């Protein structure tokens, strides 16, 4: 089986690529929002997995099988030394950022069809039922994610970009 380090590097690389496609899709107004959100969700999930692979106490097999929550990741990332450095002297601003980032991260996580399908069926990939109707993602406006375009939402996106940019693979064991 490939090493933990190899998996971490692989997840980070794929996250970086998903993030790039996300950026390309947001630049085209003709493409339905679901497609860009799908790539955003995938980029977020994979960078969370990359950082998760650095936890050497967990079984690698479990890590690969289990869903890793982006919402949990963003909480830990906000507490990371990197963010401490980035927000030096701006604690009050970070408190505000953290509140919205946590809320939006949960909404991004729910875009995966496997997450909270009963409570929040509005995912970015597959149609869902709403009363007597079937709603395809390409015809849905995702109002709960409209905050992504607000200043706070853009800050969350910058946090995602920073997490991807900051990622360094774990050191090999001595």
């Amino acid at each position, binding site marked *: 089986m490939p090493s933990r380090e190899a998996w971490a590097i692989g997840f980070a690389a794929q996250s970086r690529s998903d993030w790039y496609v996300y950026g390309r899709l947001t630049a085209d107004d003709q493409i339905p929002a679901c497609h860009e959100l799908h790539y955003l969700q995938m980029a977020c999930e994979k960078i969370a997995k990359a950082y*998760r692979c650095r936890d050497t*106490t967990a079984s690698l097999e479990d890590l690969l099988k*289990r869903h890793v929550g982006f919402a*949990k990741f963003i*909480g830990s990332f906000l507490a*990371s030394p990197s963010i401490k450095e980035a927000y030096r002297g701006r604690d009050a601003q970070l408190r505000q950022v953290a509140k919205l980032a946590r809320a939006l991260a949960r909404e991004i996580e729910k875009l995966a069809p496997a997450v909270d399908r009963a409570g929040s069926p509005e995912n970015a990939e597959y149609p869902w039922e709403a009363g007597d109707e079937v709603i395809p993602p390409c015809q849905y406006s995702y109002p709960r994610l409209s905050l992504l375009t607000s200043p706070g939402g853009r800050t969350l996106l910058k946090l995602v970009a920073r997490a991807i940019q900051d990622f360094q693979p774990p050191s090999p064991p001595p």
Partner: protein
Amino acid sequence: MSAPQTKDAAARNLIQWHFTVEPELREVYRMDDEGSLEEPIRLLEVNAASVPTGSIEPFGFSPTEEIPFRTVIAEITPEELETVRSHPEALPEGWSLSRAERFIRPQSA
């Protein structure tokens, strides 16, 4: 600001900062051996603003100039902490609440 010179000082600096910027952070359990420079700083943080998932997911972060040690942070809700108390096997391998150093929210934070 000069960088803390020891792992213990860096861990305490990081924990103190977490209480400052996270209003819902209730307590922090430091899980690592402070004398081991190879072992990362490992923190289990009990935060009411966290999302309950029923699992403990530690994430690893790189050192910085100010915190020059690898850091692993897992966040759980107060309710998840109660579950961990009754099912300590849910903790990652090598983590133990009874052996951890506990930091509670300072009155001033």
